């Protein structure tokens, strides 16, 4: 148990932070812990969590995916238009949209891993291109309503449990399995901690990197479809909040933004923290603007806490524990 806490110190911290936040929120907003409210929090967190799933893999591998907002948005609009409000077309539209998301990821991954384009540039460019394409495609017109089947997936429930919560749980198990129990997971951590060492060790570095982007495109597209179900229709700009929240969830969840460490178990806590925070601030009478400011500060502080510089600062402040944190044995 102790070894687990030591190894996953940051993930444990993320869950502790979430609990504290939950208590504080319920103090200021007594209705917060009601069943209905918890349920809606889980639903909101699930959207962040699903987008952040792919982002977690990309960031562990040492990259970043800035194309998630418009992959999400394109998926949403494509689905809405192709289904035209009907359930039946979803059977082929769903897989098609997911495949399209994965394809964008494939292109991102090939650009980064084979052609050596920096991840920031590659995915930022993909984001802008997709934005342009979708504006051309829709001509800015509103889309049909979301099919009922998608609505069921995102707002329906089985007994007291939201369907999307179950979906998220299944995805979380799959992601954790990939990271902890498979060769691909091991390769991913190796590529993220040192691409050179991984290459010298015979790790299929390019393939591993490309797969992370494919996964990210896939989860962004999935989230886009589900979000359409949640809001009833697809609209331009619906993906914009998810760039920041997906990266923030990963960072709050204890992953190094430079790659090589982290876990989806942490990202789940990150997604929940962001959602609870979004509930707390209105309860404190703060505006949406203030919410954004606090969001920004929270991610800065959490990333700083996880950093090497913060560790050495701690060493200065707490000389008793000098050298414990990350220092080198002579």
């Amino acid at each position, binding site marked *: 148990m102790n*070894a687990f806490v030591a*190894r996953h110190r940051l993930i444990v911290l993320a869950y502790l932070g979430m609990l504290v936040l939950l208590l504080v929120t319920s103090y200021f907003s007594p209705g917060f812990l009601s069943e209905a409210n918890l349920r809606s929090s889980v639903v909101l967190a699930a959207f962040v969590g699903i987008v952040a799933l792919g982002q977690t893999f990309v960031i562990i591998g040492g990259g970043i995916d800035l194309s998630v907002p418009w992959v999400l948005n394109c998926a949403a609009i494509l689905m809405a238009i192709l289904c035209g409000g009907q359930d039946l077309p979803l059977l082929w539209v769903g897989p098609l949209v997911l495949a399209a998301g994965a394809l964008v990821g494939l292109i991102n991954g090939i650009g980064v891993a084979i052609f050596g384009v920096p991840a920031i540039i590659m995915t930022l460019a993909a984001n802008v291109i997709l934005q342009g394409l979708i504006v051309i495609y829709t001509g800015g017109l509103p889309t049909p309503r979301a099919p009922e089947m998608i609505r069921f997936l995102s707002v329906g429930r089985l007994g007291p449990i939201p369907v999307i919560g179950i979906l998220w749980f299944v995805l979380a198990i799959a992601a954790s399995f990939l990271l902890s*129990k*498979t*060769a*691909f*997971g*091991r*390769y991913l*951590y*190796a590529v993220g*901690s*040192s691409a*050179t*060492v*991984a*290459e*010298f*060790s*015979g*790790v*299929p570095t390019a393939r591993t990197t490309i797969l992370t982007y494919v996964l990210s495109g896939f989860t962004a597209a999935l989230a886009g479809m589900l979000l359409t179900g949640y809001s009833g229709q697809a609209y331009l700009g619906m993906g914009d909040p998810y760039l920041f929240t997906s990266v923030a969830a990963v960072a709050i969840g204890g992953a190094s933004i430079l790659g*090589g*460490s982290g876990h989806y178990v942490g990202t789940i806590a990150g997604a929940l923290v962001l959602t609870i925070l979004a509930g707390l601030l209105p309860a404190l009478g703060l505006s949406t603007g203030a919410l954004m400011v606090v969001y920004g500060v929270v991610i800065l502080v959490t990333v700083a806490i996880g950093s090497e510089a913060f560790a050495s600062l701690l060493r200065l402040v707490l000389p008793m524990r*000098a*050298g*414990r944190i990350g*220092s*080198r*044995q*002579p």
Partner: protein
Amino acid sequence: MDLLSAHGLSKRFGGIVALDDASFSARAGEVHALLGENGAGKSTFIQILGGVLRPDAGTITLGGSDYRPVDPDAARARGIVTVFQELSSIPDLTVEGNIWFRREPRTVLRTVAKREIRRRTEALLDRYGFPALHPAQDLRRLSLAERQLVEIAKALAQEPRILVLDEATSSLAARETDWLLQLTRRLAEEGRLVVFISHRMGEVRAVADRLTIFRGGRTVAAHDAAAVSDEQIVTEMIGRRLERLYPERVSSATDRIAVGARDFSSGPRLPGVTFTLHEGEVLGVGGLQGHGQRELFQGLFGVARTQGEMTLWGTPAAIASPRDALVGREGIALVPEDRRGQGLMLSKTVRENLTLSVIRRMSSHGVLSRPREAALVKEMVDFLRIKVSTPEQQADTLSGGNQQKVIFGKMLLTEARVLLLYDPTRGVDVGTKSEIFQMMRDLAARGYAILFYSSDLQELVNVADRVMVLREGRVAATLAGDQVSEDAILRAAMFDEAA
């Protein structure tokens, strides 16, 4: 009167005692060797001297007054400059940019005075006779050895009263090492103190006036160099008698060819070599630094593009990437040049490092088997006697020798029977060195074929069955049996026999 003296120095890192009541004293005008195995406390001591660490207890006096540097700048201000083993140069700057980094001469407008920098750099390189460095070269294009020279130049530019050289020769080739040894003598004659750390006894013998030996964080002895034997020094360093550094050379080479290369080339530094490496053989690779050794190793391992013919165990091989090389028993494994940059994931555990190249072997259908992994890890930790408290220990907490053992373990787990060892004893203590040489012999006896490059000529002479000397990326000579000597290797490396 001692220029530098330290008493009762102690330093702990958590539960680990790095220095335990250590003492040290040295005079101006001498080269003072500091000896000890990896983990003996040498690095901690010089980090305290250099202002990087602060001791938990103890005092240091420098030139008669109290010395407590709070940071490296404070140490430099008192005239102590350290050339650390881990290079701290900035790859994006030029040679001169690195030498004068943070101390650039300025113009009246506070911009960097480029011409003045060039003038000073040339004067500096000239004054100390630096081999083969040009002020405007980009650092990222330089070899490890050349970067090491830049570090030394940077230190000398600060006109130190006390110069600390931590394993400064470990990445240098013979000629540059000779130059550095002469330089240390000259600095001592100018009245400065040089604290010299090296794992190579020959070098210590060549330059040191006196020596201090650390073991387990304590000072075990201080001697006049002339009054003590090599054997006694080694005994004091390791706390027991080392039977012999080099194992007995019983050749186990067979007629079977493991690696055959014909006109094997890679870039301008390796225009073409032809050689054979036999089953059971340790083939040494010699020559001056930068004459194609690195390109040869990287080419064989698939890191660099190559042309020409290559056979592996009799069949033509096309190796375009390390993945092509690491294919089990019929493959090739490498101990790379840069332990920290190419060999180890420093922030990962010993376990994760050991098994990285054999993940496929311990998984079925892509799913890992932790018990199988644990078994492989235990096997290697025991076999190589890697000193870890648990395999979950992070790689960067290990000493240099133990880190190298982890890399060896990683290589052996691949089961490849052709091993490429690029300077495997660099920065490794004498006890571990002798273990590595013995292991090489044992592996050769079991039919492994080993290509062995070392920047230490003595090692080539004492460990290899044959030595292939490279000059300008071609085989200048292949020495065998009685022909193998430091002298013969150097001659082949430098002169055209026909001339």
